[in-house]
């Protein structure tokens, strides 16, 4: 391998770890870069220090998978390079700019696996910036990684499997869960029966959790709309509508999310071609069943390529690793690769079922009140976006960004981007794919200015 740079893997979650394992197996020595202090990704995130809770208390039925993943990654020590607490903030000229240990280092790579994962997908609702409102993922991290509840009486609202999982985890931890408010009608849940044949264990686990929530007296409400979070300085309650009924509950913490969205900024900076995915109502980087993108040597694995969950991420990580091996002329286990692709296809069909059971309420954007804040960073309201779109006569999302600053704040549109696209589409009477795709910019997350301006220190890898 002399003369060739190291393969670079971004993300040390289920996908990144399995990709690393596949590369090490073939004698390659990848560099694994991850923002977290310890491996596991979001789903199998580790605590900063151990505490009195067992692995089962933390990860539930997935504890064996979490433990195996952490253990397997630890076993790779010495056979790869691992930079935790490191942010890949730019990709240019075949090199990666990585902020680590207070400095920016530039690394040449040969082969890039992007296992960047996902974050919660949300649409703005009144009161969503109040202290005490967290994403479902955020509420889960508070509980699992930090051992804290986001309130003493908590309501979970939104859609997606995480809605019920997080509510159940809070209930199990002894926190008072006032209600689970599902944006989908109850009838949508019958779709889950179709998932029984594909992923019976997942469906049965979900049914058990729902039954346990109900047994504990947690109110489960379906088809909620016009959700508003109330309070002056912090969350004091939540209001919503069901049919024609106006509903209200007092609470001091809210977990909110509408399923997940992939982190695709690095695929964009790597030059990957994107396609619009009608099911997810999002632009996703193109890739084949093995994870190969439109850019030779750049691979995608896990939720960053499209939401499919942790089990799929492990499989996709391994598959991408095998693809990289094949493209380098190394042994690549074709039978194993084919078996993985079959499993991933089955999980993909399961995802279609989940999407029907937990549909994204895109119409919320159309109905959004003008005063609702869309961009948390720059505090831009729905009305300001609508006015900017009308005034400048734009129906294109990057133009809208230029004239309204939406998507220009510190989060780079991670939180508001899909809402802005839905708003613009509704406002201009077009489909959401017709308004275009918000382009990613480096640095993909805030870094000190001195780091971005400093002359990069080129490093010879390996």
């Amino acid at each position, binding site marked *: 391998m002399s003369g060739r740079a190291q393969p670079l893997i971004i993300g040390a979650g289920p996908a990144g770890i399995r990709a690393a394992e596949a590369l090490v197996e073939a004698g390659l020595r990848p560099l694994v870069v991850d923002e977290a202090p310890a491996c596991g990704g979001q789903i199998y995130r580790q605590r900063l220090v151990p505490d009195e809770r067992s692995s089962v208390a933390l990860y539930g039925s997935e504890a064996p998978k979490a433990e195996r993943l952490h253990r397997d990654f630890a076993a790779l020590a010495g056979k790869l390079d691992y930079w935790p607490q490191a942010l890949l903030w730019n990709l240019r000229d075949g090199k990666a700019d990585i902020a680590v240990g207070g400095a920016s280092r530039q690394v040449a790579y040969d082969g890039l696996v992007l296992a960047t994962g996902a974050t919660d997908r949300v649409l703005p609702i009144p009161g969503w910036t109040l*202290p005490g409102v967290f994403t479902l993922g955020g509420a889960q991290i508070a509980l699992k990684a930090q051992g804290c509840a986001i309130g003493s009486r908590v309501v979970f609202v939104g859609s997606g499997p995480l809605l019920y999982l997080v509510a159940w985890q809070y209930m199990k931890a002894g926190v008072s869960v006032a209600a689970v408010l599902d944006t989908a009608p109850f009838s949508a849940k019958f779709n889950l029966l179709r998932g029984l044949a594909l992923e019976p264990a997942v469906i049965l686990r979900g049914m058990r959790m729902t039954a346990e929530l109900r047994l504990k007296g947690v109110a489960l409400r379906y088809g909620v709309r016009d959700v508003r979070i109330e309070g002056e300085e912090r969350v004091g309650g939540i209001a919503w509508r069901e049919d024609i009924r106006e509903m209200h509950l007092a609470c001091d913490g809210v977990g909110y999310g509408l399923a997940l969205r992939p982190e695709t900024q690095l695929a964009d900076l790597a030059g990957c071609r994107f396609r619009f995915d009608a099911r997810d109502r999002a632009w996703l980087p193109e890739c084949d069943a093995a994870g190969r993108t439109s850019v030779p040597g750049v691979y995608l694995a896990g939720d960053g390529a499209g939401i499919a969950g942790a089990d799929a991420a492990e499989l996709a990580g391994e598959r991408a690793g095998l693809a990289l091996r094949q493209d380098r002329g190394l042994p690549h286990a074709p039978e194993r690769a084919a078996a993985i692709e079959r499993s991933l296809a089955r999980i993909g069909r399961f995802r279609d079922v989940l999407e029907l059971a937990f549909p994204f309420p895109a119409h919320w954007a159309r109905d959004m009140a003008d005063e609702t804040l869309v961009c948390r960073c720059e505090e831009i309201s729905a009305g300001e976006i609508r006015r900017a779109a009308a005034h400048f006569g734009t129906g294109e999302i990057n133009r809208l960004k230029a004239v309204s600053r939406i998507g220009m704040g510190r989060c780079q549109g991670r939180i508001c981007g899909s809402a802005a696209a839905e708003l613009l589409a509704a406002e201009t009477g077009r489909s959401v794919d017709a308004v275009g795709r918000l382009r990613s910019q480096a640095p993909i997350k*805030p870094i000190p200015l001195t780091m971005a301006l400093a002359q990069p220190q080129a490093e010879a890898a390996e």
Partner: protein
Amino acid sequence: MPLLHRIARRDHEAIAFTLDGHACQGRAGDTVLTAILAQAEKLRFSEFSASPRAGFCQMGACQDCWVVLESGERLRACSTALGAGMRIATKGRAA
């Protein structure tokens, strides 16, 4: 009334820090976000409307939890471990 309620790690080693000049204690294993919100109900005021904020995603994506130290250093509270002696300011508007 603090925003977060501890249900684990209550007896871990105490870590002293100050919040707007007041002496506070976090616990070993706390992020800055946890340490502050286990004492207080906000992390900062927003730049434009000065409305209280307390983070959102807790996974380093939303950038809503940047806080300032008295030294002027800025840090993302959800992804920074609490350090002994940190002097954190939440009253300023420049987060």
